[in-house]
């Protein structure tokens, strides 16, 4: 099988994040090479920047949040998700212990909540939870704390009363005993509790133009990721740690293992999208992104299961 | 045009008035020179004497094209001086050597600016340095030279490019008398060889008389005017040391001195408190 385009530029916003673990696994397992692809992975400071690289044409494909596909359709810049890497967002809302006891969403009123960045999915998640309790985003104040050591610093200084963040920040803070979880979308139950359905997280997306022009390449890429998802589904923690580059747990290996175990359920078992997941995402975005609210979104153009199904047919033998 | 230039004087200043804005940029202005008119014929050696601060350097700046007069006009060889006076070489009163060039490079600069290759320019600069008695100091930077040495470098720097008009602002005041006389003779030699026009500012009246065809006397400022003009009818070639003893010289000296002395005292009385 020959692909149209061998040399590909893939953009990602924070490669070492557990959110994008399948990408690193695919790379380390050598699946790209096996498929005859030469993928250069560029790592960006955030999901928004990797998306911009795609729109600007400097990247061919992106592993990023599914939300982007809806947001971009609203902006008239269609992009299509071709396979899913994560089925639960993995966002955790937790109370910072130093700042006092917070058990329910209602108690957040008037508090300072740390999110990775204003306008990010962590921000939307909190917004959504607030809305369910009949509160408005203005009832709390959001502080962007980033997704790295600066988030830990904010927790340690007690500058925020609650935090909505991802792993490994959450696992680190949990391990230090600094936070108490309020809502956890790393599990099916937590995700259903929050969103009322599965919520697609990390996906592989590209522009329709790219997919149209390079169907074989797209298929090959999807093959790689589906194969990775299947591998991950069966792998043990040790298997995964063995594959990953050493740098990833130079900070603290046990922490990394812990964080991985927490996150394991979030990975999609097979790469398939579901319509309810897409609808959940749209519902959330409509509530808080004015551009999305104003647009009429055709969800069927935001994702396609075509390539996944094809892959599964061949791979799940 | 060429004819006009041939008959036109090398320098012609007519009714030149120079008014400076006041130090703080507004308020009172200061008129240094008022209605000065004089000509310098082609090949003539003219000295300007006058009390300190009267406006001699200001006049030279006008002649060099570095300063546009508030009123009046300045012509070089019949053409109005707009911007730099391309016919003139100017030896400044203040230190004006390029501090980043050695003495030799400073002397060679004018040639280099005229497109002479660096090597050749420096070769041609060497005899000039020797002429001003500094051949062993070619590699010194200006700050490594004594005050008098810097002046001599500036002299060579100005003369090497062979300007048709030479403007000199107190060129020899930092030199001892002997060196000074040598330089004076050197200058006269050069001048008589190809009859440049020279405007020469000095505080040494004897020097002015000994060197010049004509001596102009500037009154004390503010509003300095030209108040005297003396034709020096001493025969040439002259030796500046010997000529000082001739009776004609002494007469002239006495006459100009009297005028000058009065001027200075007047100017001094104007500015002095007690």
């Amino acid at each position, binding site marked *: 099988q020959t692909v149209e385009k061998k040399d590909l530029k893939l953009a990602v916003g924070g490669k070492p994040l557990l959110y994008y673990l399948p990408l690193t696994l695919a790379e380390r397992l050598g699946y790209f090479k096996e498929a005859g692809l030469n993928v250069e992975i560029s790592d960006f400071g955030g999901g928004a920047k990797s998306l911009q690289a795609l729109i600007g044409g400097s990247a061919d494909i992106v592993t990023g949040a599914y939300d982007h596909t809806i947001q971009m359709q609203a902006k008239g810049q269609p992009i299509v998700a071709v396979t899913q890497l994560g089925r639960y967002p993995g966002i955790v809302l937790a109370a910072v212990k130093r700042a006092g006891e917070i058990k329910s969403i209602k108690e957040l009123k008037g508090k300072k909540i740390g999110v990775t960045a204003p*306008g990010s999915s962590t921000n939307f998640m909190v917004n959504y939870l607030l809305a369910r309790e009949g509160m408005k985003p203005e009832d709390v104040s959001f502080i962007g*704390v980033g997704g790295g050591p600066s988030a830990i610093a904010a927790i340690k200084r007690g*500058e925020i009363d609650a935090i909505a963040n991802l792993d490994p920040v959450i696992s680190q803070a949990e391990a230090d005993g600094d936070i108490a979880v309020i809502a956890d979308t790393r599990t099916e139950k937590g995700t259903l509790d929050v969103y009322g359905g599965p919520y697609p997280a990390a996906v592989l997306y590209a522009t329709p133009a790219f997919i149209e022009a390079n169907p074989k390449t797209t298929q090959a890429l999807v093959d790689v990721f589906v194969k990775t998802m299947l591998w991950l589904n069966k792998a043990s923690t040790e298997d995964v740690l063995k594959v990953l580059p050493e740098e990833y747990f130079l900070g603290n290996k046990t922490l990394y293992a812990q964080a991985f175990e927490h996150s394991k359920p979030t990975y999609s078992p097979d790469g398939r999208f579901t319509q309810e997941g897409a609808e959940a995402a749209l519902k959330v975005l409509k509530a808080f*992104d004015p551009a999305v609210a104003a647009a009429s979104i055709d969800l069927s153009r935001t994702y396609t299961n075509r390539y996944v199904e094809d892959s599964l047919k061949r791979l799940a033998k | 045009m060429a004819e006009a230039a041939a008959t036109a004087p090398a320098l012609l200043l007519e009714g030149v008035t120079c008014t400076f804005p006041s130090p703080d940029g507004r308020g009172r202005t200061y008129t240094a020179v008022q209605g000065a008119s004089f000509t310098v014929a082609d090949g003539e050696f003219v000295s300007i004497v006058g009390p300190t601060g009267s406006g001699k350097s200001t006049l030279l*700046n006008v002649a060099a094209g*570095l300063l*546009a007069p508030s009123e009046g006009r300045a012509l070089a060889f019949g053409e109005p001086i707009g911007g730099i006076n391309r016919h003139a070489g100017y030896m400044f009163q203040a230190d004006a050597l390029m501090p980043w060039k050695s003495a030799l490079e400073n002397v060679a600069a004018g040639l280099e600016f005229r497109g002479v290759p660096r090597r050749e320019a420096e070769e041609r600069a060497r005899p000039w340095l020797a002429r001003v008695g500094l051949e062993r100091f070619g590699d010194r930077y200006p700050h490594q030279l004594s005050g008098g040495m810097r002046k001599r470098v500036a002299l060579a720097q100005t003369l090497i490019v062979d300007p048709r008009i030479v403007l000199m602002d107190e060129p020899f005041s930092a030199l001892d008398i002997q060196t000074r006389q040598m330089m004076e003779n050197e200058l006269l030699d050069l001048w008589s060889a190809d009859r440049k026009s020279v405007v020469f500012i000095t505080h040494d009246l004897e020097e002015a008389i000994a060197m010049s065809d004509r001596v102009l006397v500037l009154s004390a400022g503010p509003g300095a005017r030209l108040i005297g003009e003396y034709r020096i009818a001493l025969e040439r070639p002259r030796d500046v040391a010997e000529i000082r003893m001739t009776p004609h010289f002494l007469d002239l000296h006495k006459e100009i001195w009297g005028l000058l002395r009065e001027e200075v005292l007047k100017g001094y009385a104007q500015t002095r408190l007690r």
Partner: protein
Amino acid sequence: MAAPRSKRLPGRPVILLLQAGVLVGFFLLWHVLTETRILSPFFFGTPLAVLERTVKDFASGVIWYHLGITLLETALAFAIGTVAGIAFGFWFARAPLVSVVFDPYIKAVNALPRVVLAPIFALWLGLGIWSKVALGVTLVFFIVFFNVYQGVKEVSPVVLANARMLGAGSRQLFRHVYLPSALSWVFSSLHTAVGFAMVGAVVGEYLGSSAGLGYRIHQAEGVFDTVGVFSGMLVLTIFVVVIDAVVTLIEKRLLHWRPQEAHTTNAQG
């Protein structure tokens, strides 16, 4: 001793007109390029939308709070960085041993990427304005420092020796010789530093904060609101130009002794 400007500058109104012309030309170019899709509006917004948004933000007043915070951070970063830069610059220039020993370290610290330091600042100084101020200070300080250091070294040795012979102690040398002599260096660095102070503040906000223009820009970027991003930058630049005008005003006052090309009044030349 005197060099007239080859061409006199036109009057103030003409200059203002030309400046406005440049601005209008720029917006026009932007407009045409985005209208014709040579530049994608997704990345560059459109000038009309940006202006409209900016006006709306000011009219509705939401921007003032954020602007106030950013300006406060900028001012603090600028002030602290400048004072520290001047103080250290002078100290280093006057203490050759200190300067020789610390020289490589100063340069090394100058090369640290501030973005990476943000978590440490956040840890030490919290998420409030001070961590942003710190970021700005680390940018401003070095620019001012190196210029002051050089400026002090450029003091004319003769003038210095004269002041010393007149009995100036090291304090007086500082006030009467080093400082005035180095002032043009200081101001040159301040023109760069103003911009960098603002950059520091905005980048700091961008990396983590709850208010300020950087926060707003980041927020707009998060929802791919290019118009919001550019509107934020527009507001930024307007205010930096204002601050810089103040610096220039002070500069003109303090450096009025500067020998300029001599000129006479009413010169026709």
